[in-house]
């Protein structure tokens, strides 16, 4: 079952904008993905949350586009869109019926070239309020909502750019000024700091002509400051524990490890290790903690790939009522230790790879995902062909490499253990209900999350 090869072209305009085009005419739709090599890791002390606030400002209009008109025009064209900010990047994307591609290119070029012409204090203040409500909704008013800030705070030293959360602090958001917006834009939102990938129903020559026409006039910034050295020791060097009281009915463990940087093939092996640990109902952690011993309500572990200094590998387990937290913690680490010492069996490896291959087949069928991958691999690794080479690399990982990756990462002196416990007086009466049928547990992770515009 070979996953089809994605053919693409990879060119640069004179101003440095990288343009990647992957034609495919199966469906009359096209995906556009603009990737800027700027994320919350570029923020300095006192300015946390700024990259994300800036992303919101990108929807507030530019010289020829009114406030929120970008959203309006794309949706009225039958398209979908969003933007996200994360540690290593900020991205903006649209998926549209293919005859509306030119609109998306014009819109993206207009804000890349002329954002500041439409910038106003009123719009900045409005989006500051929106982002503060996003922070309240996603973190402050949510059970266990502080976990990521705490975990990253422990995994990275205070002076490391991954130490602070992408959403930022209320104080820093309050302090963001128009001058900050102008400077950030002038510094990082330059064509030579961006990649645009177009995938789907389009014609290469036409796309390149439009790219030149719309993006060509935007000047490059020859002086994009390099990120200061942020290399880190591969492991924490100690075990760090924190206990957090929260208004939650059940204790929950959050576990964090430092892990090899994104792009290092040891991270591929670690990903496979995590698949064996918690991918599906026959996986090791799920089978033991949830099914057999029934001490956890849910359990999950997986790597989050980052390119600067270190990735992380994060685990979570919710403790069932009446069970000691220590019991869950002990079982969790025993399973990690077993994988770190014993080579996994061939059938287990084969099943994990077969599932990954099928997932990939589904993911790459969507133009939005193809455009996203091409832009990401180009932006982070200068290698868009990873869209074709990553899967074979992953499928070639051996059982020994999985064990070795587990052994290097899952060490006692490389972990943070965050234990949430119900605050005194927390509701545990067991009454009530809900309106959903999902596996209710929130806080479940995805490996490529971030703050979204909408």
């Amino acid at each position: 079952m070979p996953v089809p090869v994605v053919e693409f072209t990879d060119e640069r305009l004179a101003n440095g904008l990288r343009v990647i085009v992957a034609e495919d005419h199966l469906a009359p739709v096209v995906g556009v993905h603009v990737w800027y090599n700027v994320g919350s890791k570029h923020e300095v002390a006192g300015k946390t949350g700024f990259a994300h606030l800036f992303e919101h400002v990108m929807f507030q209009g530019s010289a020829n586009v009114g406030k929120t008109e970008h959203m309006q025009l794309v949706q009225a064209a039958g398209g979908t869109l969003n933007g996200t900010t994360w540690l290593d990047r900020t991205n903006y994307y649209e998926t549209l019926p293919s005859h509306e591609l030119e609109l998306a290119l014009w819109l993206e070029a207009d804000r890349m070239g002329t954002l500041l012409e439409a910038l106003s204090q009123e719009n900045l203040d409005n989006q500051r309020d929106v982002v503060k409500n996003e922070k309240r909704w996603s973190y402050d008013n949510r059970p266990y909502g502080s976990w990521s800030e705490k975990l990253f705070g422990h995994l990275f030293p205070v002076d490391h750019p991954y130490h602070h959360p992408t959403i930022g602090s209320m104080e820093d958001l309050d302090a963001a000024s128009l001058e900050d917006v102008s400077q950030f834009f002038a510094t990082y939102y330059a064509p030579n700091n961006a990649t645009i990938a177009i995938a789907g129903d389009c014609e290469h020559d036409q796309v390149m002509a439009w790219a030149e026409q719309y993006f060509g006039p935007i000047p490059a910034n020859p002086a994009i400051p390099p990120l200061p050295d942020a290399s880190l020791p591969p492991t924490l060097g100690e075990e760090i524990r924190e206990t957090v009281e929260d208004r939650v009915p059940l204790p929950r463990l959050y576990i964090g490890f430092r892990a090899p940087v994104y792009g290092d093939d040891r991270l591929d092996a670690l990903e496979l290790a995590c698949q064996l640990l918690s991918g599906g109902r026959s996986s090791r952690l799920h089978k033991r903690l949830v099914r057999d011993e029934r001490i956890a309500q849910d359990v999950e572990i997986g790597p989050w790939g980052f390119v600067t200094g270190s990735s992380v590998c994060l685990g979570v387990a919710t403790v069932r009522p009446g069970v000691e937290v220590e019991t869950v913690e002990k079982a969790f680490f025993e399973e990690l230790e077993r994988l770190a010492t014993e080579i996994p069996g061939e059938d287990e490896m084969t099943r994990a790879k077969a599932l990954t291959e099928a997932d990939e087949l589904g993911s790459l069928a969507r133009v939005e995902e193809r455009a996203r991958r091409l832009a990401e691999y180009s932006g982070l690794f200068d290698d868009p062909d990873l869209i074709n080479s990553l899967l074979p690399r992953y499928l070639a990982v051996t059982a020994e490499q999985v064990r070795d990756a587990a052994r290097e990462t899952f060490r006692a002196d490389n972990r943070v253990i965050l234990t949430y416990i119900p605050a005194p007086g927390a509701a545990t009466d067991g009454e009530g209900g809900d309106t959903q049928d999902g596996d209710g547990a929130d806080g479940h992770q995805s490996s490529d999350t971030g703050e979204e515009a909408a």
Partner: protein
Amino acid sequence: MSAGREMITQRPVPGHPRPYDFPHTVRTELANGLRLIVTPMQGRELIAATLAFRNGAVDEPAAVGGATVLAARALTEGTEVRDAIELTEAAERLGASIHAEAGWDATSAGLDVPASRLAPAMELLAEVVRRPRYPESEIDRLRDERLTDLLQARADPRRRADEAYVSSIYAPSSPYRRPAGGTAETVAALTPADLRAVHARAYVPSSAALVVVGDVEPDAVVQIAEDLFGAWSGAEGVAQAPIDDTGAVDRRFVRVVHRPGSVQTEIRIGHRGLPRRHADFFAVSVMSMILGGLFNSRLNANLREDKGYTYGASAGFDLRRARGPFTARAAVNTEATVPSLGEFFKELALIREELVSEDELRSARDFLIGVFPLRFETPGPVAGSLSGLFIHGLPDDELAHYRAAIEAVTAEDVRRVAHEHIRPERSAVILLGDHEAFAADLEAANLGPIDVVRDAEPVAPAEEG
């Protein structure tokens, strides 16, 4: 660099749309009544296969509330041939994961699998659906997991607000008043026998459709279905009783679920809405987009982009077999609670009384029409839509007519359906938040009688100011 060249200020005009039709779909039926719906999509190697049953949580007796959802979840917990782990592993070797779930309207069991392994994967699906074992020990576990989940829901502001909302807008006789997955009381009493009863009643070929979408040959799929399901017999589908969707909102009232120290208030406003099968479906779709669906919908443009009260405000109808809820919603910072209510009611009144602008109407229609090929780019959503038609008993050609029907909606239609289906003066207003912070303003706003629910709650931890 292209010094001196100017940015293009002129917005481009759209090119010529490539013709798009919902993919051609083949329909047939086995002798036992099982419908087969097959949609070939060239080049789509990951096949979506779903067995949909027209039987959901709404069809179960109140005393066993949650049995239908649990019966679906337990379907993959073992068959007469294999236990749950063997079953999972067999599917994984094929690159497939089998899932089963039930909601208010329906139950489904399905899988995604590469085309070359469709036949063996379908064998597993047939085994799961026709010969589940419902082992007592796994049922015990799933039941406990559900009870624990209910405990978690109580502490989550969003889920607690949703629960308080539905229990406020439906009468005690209506199943919609409770969660589809059941309450702690009913779930705690469920036994394997209850789940087997659901299976015997609901998982029968005469009330099922097998939907297969992707790069497949219809003849080959029909052959597979004949082999695996041809000899499947089951109770003749019992005629379904009418659904009790009696509402409980005869005047406007406010219910506050007090959460001390809450930095936001979760707002839910509304009442029961209308069923999916309704002559106003298309006009209501357009109206909902304008009121609270699009990014620039009136609610979001007002509460988010103008006032900054929220990360997002929306409104919509949950269109079920009977009258599901109409809900307008947002999470707003605590200080904005009462001002937000004013804006909500202003917008709800406006869309009922005045014609929407041509621009708004065109944006909403163009979105629903234009997004059609995006919605159906891959097999999963195509299978989902076809299952939906079957579940709701809608005509086979519904999707072929969809775009023309949306195009025909007028501003007058929008006003009429808003007037008819939205009732601000007879709506429940649920506020989950710190009552003490807005009690006086709420009282002064004079929206209707106010009652305050106090959950057993922890002392609030310190929050940002």
